[in-house]
């Protein structure tokens, strides 16, 4: 790392408590991808316009390119890697719904779409069509025309149980 490090900060990443020095001048996106090797979070514009880098921060979808790494102190962060644990084959119902509805074309926006969908379903178990459109409006997709993505969100909403969502809720209230 070629940036000044902060003193050790505590945060929770994909359900695991961490205590690390983080680069002060880096974005969370860069920290995830370049330091932690979590390349599932994609970089599409670096200025908060495309949503490809969406992660959950305390249960809410955020553009990780607009969050500075030190800002995650005491926060709970979930990335796409936490949705399906490394080496795991069992997909989360949201992921299954995306496959089932052919909501994945080139796949570059997909991890961000999945994280935004989880964020939406954490707040609203049965979103209506306009709530789905509004929730996904910050995640650009140039391939699908969004219809199959909306179908995937509706299917996911029908499939998920509280068990599927519980991990993403942990520690949120403490922060």
């Amino acid at each position, binding site marked *: 790392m*070629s940036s000044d490090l902060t003193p050790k900060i505590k945060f929770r990443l994909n359900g695991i408590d961490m205590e690390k020095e983080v680069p002060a001048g880096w974005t969370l996106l860069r920290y995830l*991808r370049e330091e932690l090797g979590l*390349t*599932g*979070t*994609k*970089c*599409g*514009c*670096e*200025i908060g*316009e*495309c949503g*490809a880098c969406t992660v959950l921060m305390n249960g809410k979808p955020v553009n990780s390119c607009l969050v500075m790494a030190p800002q995650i102190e005491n926060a709970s962060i979930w*990335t*796409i*890697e936490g*949705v*399906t644990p490394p080496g795991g084959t069992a*997909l989360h119902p949201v*992921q299954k719904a*995306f*496959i*089932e509805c*052919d909501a*994945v*074309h*080139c*796949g*570059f*926006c*997909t*991890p961000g779409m*999945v994280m935004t969908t989880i964020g939406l379903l954490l707040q609203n178990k049965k979103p209506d069509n306009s709530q*789905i*459109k*509004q*929730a*996904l*409006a*910050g*995640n*650009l*997709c*140039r*391939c*699908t*025309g*969004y*219809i*199959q*993505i*909306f179908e995937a969100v509706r299917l996911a909403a029908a499939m998920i149980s509280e068990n599927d969502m519980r991990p993403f809720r942990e520690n949120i209230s403490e922060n």
Partner: protein
Amino acid sequence: MSVVGKRVARAEGSERVKGAGLFADDYKYFGMLHAAVVRSPLARGEIRKIDFKTIAKIPGVAGILTYKDIPGRNCVPIVIDDQSFLAERYVNYIGEPIAIVVAENRQTARLAAAQAKISIEELPPLLNPLEALNHPKIHLFGNDNIYKHIHIHRGDVKKAFADCDVIIENEYHTPYQEHAYIEPQSMIAIPFPDGSIEIRGSMQCPFYVRKAITTILGLPENKVRVIQCATGGGFGGKEDVPSLLACQVALPAWIFKRPVKLIYDRTEDMMVTSKRHPAYIKYKSGATKDGILRAVEAEYIIDGGAYSTLSAVVLFRGSVHAIGPYKCENVDVHSYAVATNKVPTGAFRGFGSPQILFAVESQMDQLAEKIGMDPVMFRKKNILRVGDTTVTGQKLEYSVGLEETLDKVIEKSGWTPGKSKEDGVGYGISTIYYGVGLGAGGKSMARTGARVLVHADGSVLFSVGTTEIGQGMTTVLSQIVADELGAPLDWISMMPTDTSRVPDSGPTVASRSTTMSGNALKDACIKIKSVLLEEAASMLDCSTGDIIFDEGIVTGGGKTIKLLDVIKSCFAKRLPLSAEGWYITPSTSWDDNTGQGDAYVVYAWASNLAKVKVDKETGEVNLLKIWAAHDVGKAINPALAEGQIEGGTLQGVGYALMEDMTTNADGAIRNPEFSTYIIPTASDQPEIVPIIVEHPFPGGPFGAKGFGEQPLMGVAPAIANAVYDAVKVRIKDLPITPEKVWQGLKNK
């Protein structure tokens, strides 16, 4: 049970939903450097002095390279070799590459590139193609600044116009359209000690990339291996541009003997990479009062930017589609691709046809109105059917489903012309066609290879030279291989496209992958299947003609065995179960001098019906619904075909209503970010009804023909026609912004 025609899940689905690190920027190599490009700040000028002393001292900068460091030829070959890899003396557009900086990390490389000091003596630029055409003094290309001129001529236009009862004459303009793939351009070069080099990146055309690298490094083709990474959208934007990026990483990798990665910053990507050509169209068409299209005269000018790149072939497609899918015996079309001092324009879904089809379909509605005929009836009187002849004199023998697409959108919508509607609501139609594949424009490139390997455990691996860019090629080709071999779909997988595995198979463009690679795979599978058949016949003790292969089960002579046992038996007997396939398209009879002949082997067809509501106070167009019917020959996977229709249609909606990229007075792109160049978001998404029509193409795998580009092509005119139907305002200049509609309402 066949899997062709089934809605099977996308092959890469589970990797993509997990965010598996398969895109170029996800790869990391030991000792890897990062590149950034030093670019021209001026639209036209002569380079006087380059001073890299300051940036060379920035900690982390490993080196700076210019054209002087190129071991081979300083050229990025595309169609004509007029584009340098790195500028030598002159620069011709804002963003033209001059030097490459490499550094230990991306941020340092970008910072250093931005601080490079280059002194350029400014020369007056040509920014308007209408001024550039035949400019008396400034010659950017040849003596006339024309990259290509095409003339299509049939019958006697002058005489025919004299016989017309109605004539409509207009000028149209269409702007740039940016691809806005969500993954920016990305490339890595890895040099090896044996003198070979590997390129991995985001791309549509690995064989174009290989040619570029052999050119600039002076290497033979067997020393350059190009492998496609997962590619986050292309739409034409990753046809020729990746060749530039590959050169920009290969040169420093070659010189410094270290892997080099280059990812374009989004703003850079939108500033300097290709886009849809802006177009200026003069269009005159005439009809008789009984509704027969009699004559078309058009001038079609496209702004090619500073280098020719793909403009000549873009112009070819636009010209062939210049009267739309209609019969017309008297045609005179002159089209020109013109050089200007702006970013080179290139391939984008539709490839020169959406611009002219906007004019064609706007004209059709105006002619219909002037005759007093409804726009559907007028089209029905003129559309091409089997047995008819196209504008280039090509007789259509098969697979012409246009009328059915038109009937289907009417039927599904419940709309009929003249039906009463709410105030401010309008309906608009477009009927279009698309010449599938490279056609006569592709010449020797119209071939593909494939390789199929059946392993002893039954698993099958295939390789093709075309690429997966999100359109679903891998899935569709896997379905074709499964059915051709009679094997279950989950036995089949595809290697990432790699130039070392198959012969040069041309580019992944022109909606050609399903038909071209599908046919090449079929050829390979037939060879393997004949070995399997012989073996099965001896195992079942019956003749090969009595045997049926079906998803892993082989039946014949009243008995059933497993395909896996047949495969094992072949391996035990050392019989070969791998084969190479090859496919070339039938030759076309196009004559560049007369503009006549068979332009494409087969055409796809489509009708769009748009329903809008226009706000009469603000001019805002609210697109309520769009019905899009496409004749695809045969949908190998209907879910994927519908996905292509929906996604392409929404890109067409963006082109029609919101995507408005322009240049400033200096010739720079004015709005190179997603906050200023607005593409449709989830909240802009209208209701889209995809409709698949199937008129099989005898030369396609299982009757399929390509159509991936077509969904975008007819959307803008359908919406423009709907706006007119709603408020009687005719917009001839895309996009259809509230300001233009409001102005039109005010001027009435």
